[in-house]
Every structure is written in C-alpha cells, then in structure tokens.
C-alpha cells in the first residue's frame, strides 16, 4: 500500500503548488489588473518604468495614426484624468474612440505610456444590428 501513498503526495503537492503559484505568482498583479488614469497620476514616480496596465475609455478625437496605421497615439481617460498612450502595432478591430480599452506597457519619463499591447474592454450589453444597417456587417467585425 506504500506506492499509492507516494503518488497521492506527489499529486496533492502538484495541485497545491499549481494553485499557490497561480494565487501568488499572478493574483497579486491580478488584484489590480489595471490602474485608472487617476491612479497613474497619483503614483506617477513610484510606478514609472514598471510593467503595468492602464484601463479606461479611449478619449474621443484623441486617436492619431500614421499612414500605415502601425503607429498610433491616443488618450485613455477616466473622465477626470488622462494618460497619453503611444502604441506600435495594429490596433484591435473593435478599438474605438469613446469605448473601453486596457493597455499594457510602461510609463516613460516623458509622461507617455508606451504600450506593448492594446486590449478592448467591451460592455456586457448586447444589441442587434439596427434595421437600417441590415444586409451589411457592422462597421468593425464580420
């Protein structure tokens, strides 16, 4: 009966190890999955050059892109505070001014947030395509 016992210990320690790793390895970051622009302003110096995420709305009329659409700058806002973001790469299909976005990257000395990844945070609300638009797919997705 000794053999299964060792197996059990190995299995249990593997599972516990995996859970502890997930909780302490990632959950500490996950607790504050993203900062708001206000928190970025408050913490400014202490978080500079650290990898983190900023989330909020893409400020209306803040998006500037070069011709090939591979270099973009835009502003993430929480209504009161703004964070200027620079991103090199294709923006997500559903990225839109006035909609939610979460960016991953680092805040540089020039107060610009250099994003290495841009994600779209969408709402929990779903609506059919309005009748007028029917026949064609909606603007962004197919």
């Amino acid at each position: 009966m000794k053999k299964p016992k060792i197996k059990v210990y190995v299995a249990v320690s593997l599972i516990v190890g995996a859970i502890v790793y997930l909780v302490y390895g990632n959950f500490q970051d996950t607790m504050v999955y993203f900062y708001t622009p206000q928190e970025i302003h408050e913490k400014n110096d202490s978080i500079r050059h650290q990898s983190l995420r900023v989330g909020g709305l893409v400020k209306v009329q803040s998006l500037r892109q070069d011709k090939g659409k591979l270099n973009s700058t835009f502003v993430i806002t929480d209504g009161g505070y703004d964070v200027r973001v620079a991103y090199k790469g294709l923006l997500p299909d559903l990225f839109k001014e006035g909609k939610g976005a979460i960016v991953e990257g680092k805040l540089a000395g020039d107060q610009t947030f250099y994003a290495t990844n841009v994600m779209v945070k969408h709402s929990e609300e779903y609506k059919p395509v309005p009748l007028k638009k029917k026949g064609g797919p909606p603007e962004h997705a197919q």
Partner: protein
Amino acid sequence: MKAAVRMREVIGVLALLCVGAGLYLALVAAPSDEYQGNVQRIMYIHVPCAWNAYMAFVGVALFSVLYLITRHKIWDLMGAASASIGVLFTGITLLSGAIWGKPVWHVWWTWDARLTTTLILFLIYVGYLMLRNFLRDDSRLETYCAVLGIIGAVDIPIVHFSVVWWRTLHQPATVINPEGVKMHGLMLFTLLFNLFVFTLVYVYLFLKRFHLEALRWKKDRPLEDV
C-alpha cells in the same frame, strides 16, 4: 431498471433535438451584435458551458455532503460522474472564451481575475479526478474525494463574482445584472434556450457517466451488492 434506462435515452434524444434547435437559433435566427458582429454568437456556447460547469461542481459538492452524511457509495459515484462532466465543460468554457477573446479583446488569454479563477476551478477538479484515480484501491477514496469536492466548490462563487470584486478585462454578467438584463428579444431568448439545452445535455451526460462509474465499480467487486 429498464424504465430508468429508457427515460435516460429519451432525455438524450430530446437533448440532441434541442441542440439542433439551439444551434439554429444561435447561428441563424439570432441577430448579429451591433458592436461585435457575428463573433458574439460564441456567447451562446460559452455561457451555457460555464453554467454547466457551475452546475456540475455544485453537484459534486452536494453529492459529497450526502456521501459524508450517509456513507453510501452511490453519492460518491455521482460525485465522480458530475466532476468529469464539470471538467469537460470548464475546458470548453476556457477554450471558447479564448476563441472569443482573440477577435474581441485582442488577446487569447490574460491573467485577470475571471480567467485566473476559472483556470483554478479547472485545476481543482482535474486534481479531484486524479485523486480518484490514485486512490482507486484505497478505502479512504470516498472521504478524501468528498472533502476535496466540497472545498473546491468554494471557488464557484469566487469565479462568478470575480468580475464584481476585482477590475477585470472580462465584462460583468449580462443576464444576472443588478441593473437589469442587458440583452433583449431574440438574443436573450437564444441564450436562455441554450442554457436550457445545455442543462439537458448535462443531465443526460451525468446519467450516462454515473451508469459507467457504477459499472466500473461493480466490475472490481463481482460478489458485492451496490
């Protein structure tokens, strides 16, 4: 016994027919989403799978409690049946979520609270199934698994409320929303219908799996009675 088997197979056929109707609603009848387009249709699979996972693991916890009270093997076998179905549906939830996440969020995976706690839920019950396997010939199998089955269920409300308790990339609940249901008409009907269909599928798979677990257990004990 024969009537029970017939009943199970009737549920199976009914589930199969409903899956067809559910797929038709999800892929053809329901309108595409204004913002996300057709990708949003993944929701009609993703949400029912998550629902089945919750249901299956609540089942495991319930059967585990009943086992600890009555010490009757039948509850342990039911727990085993429910756990394997829960692991299956949690797996499909994680996969369909990734497939939905890539076009909509722009990432397959991210370590936000909803995704992380769901992965933990998956690992807990993979662990539960591994424990069953390792303790196959051990008289403590039922008790150990029942305890794990109950402790594991603690993660279910954590998964569900993760989008409320923490900032996440994942959006909050659409149907069980404090501000009211955020979906209407045929879209809502399609989702609710598919929740019902997947529940039927769960019931059928559970009965089938339980039968299998019972056969497997009896096979090793030809002289005992269940």
